[in-house]
């Protein structure tokens, strides 16, 4: 089965997920795409690190959540 979304689409969804909860379909598409695409696996790990460190740097409320669990 071909991917319903592209790498570019997946970066958009990763950004969107900082503002809103993704729909079930979006999340499934995103997760499936990342699982199947090694480039996106790398990019997604980079965004994870970026967001976690950004939260910690800025000391925002997400950073507190990161620290507590």
């Amino acid at each position, binding site marked *: 089965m071909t991917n319903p979304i592209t790498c570019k689409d997946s970066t958009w969804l*990763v950004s969107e997920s900082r503002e809103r909860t993704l729909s079930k379909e979006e999340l499934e598409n995103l997760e499936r795409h990342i699982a199947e695409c*090694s*480039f996106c*696996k790398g990019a997604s790990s*980079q*965004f994870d*690190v970026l967001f976690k*460190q950004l939260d910690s*740097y*800025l000391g925002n409320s997400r950073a507190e959540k990161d620290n507590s669990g």
Partner: protein
Amino acid sequence: MDTRLQKTVAEEAAEYRPLLYRMALTQLKNAAAAEDATQEALLAAIEKAESFERRSSLRTWLFSILRFKILDVMREQSRARKRNSELPADGSDTEDCDISTFDALFDESGCWADTKDVWTNPHTVAERDAFFKVLEACMTRLPERTSRAFLMREWLELEPTEICQELGISTGNLRILLYRARMQLRLCLDVHWERD
């Protein structure tokens, strides 16, 4: 009141003045207002020195104090604008606002054009400081309005609707600005963050 602790905090906090000022200026767009907010945040930090817990970094603590000062000023400015029925100062919606800026990163089918290293979170204090240093430098390279919108969201933690109101832009436009900020930071870190 522990004056020795206050003195230590005052000395260490002074080193962050330029950074705090830059953060304030991005949001307030006015040198005098940014200077006031920075000064007030530093004074508040010295006054409240006893409540500073070493488990968070001094920078994080100062950011949180400055954050409240800035939100106060923004609320006051917004009230004044309403009294005068003015539009937000930044009102134009014309900044280059499509996401095609990053098209070079993808091939024609929307796939990444090259492989991406997997990053692991920096573990040691030194690694973390190194990461923060690059992150800070990368953030200063963001275009002014992108950076303002991005920090309103990630630092001041305003809701998208509040940011749109403050900047006088559409939600679609804001989503694009935030996307561009995140894409640009990832790219900048990919280039400049030295990993072993």
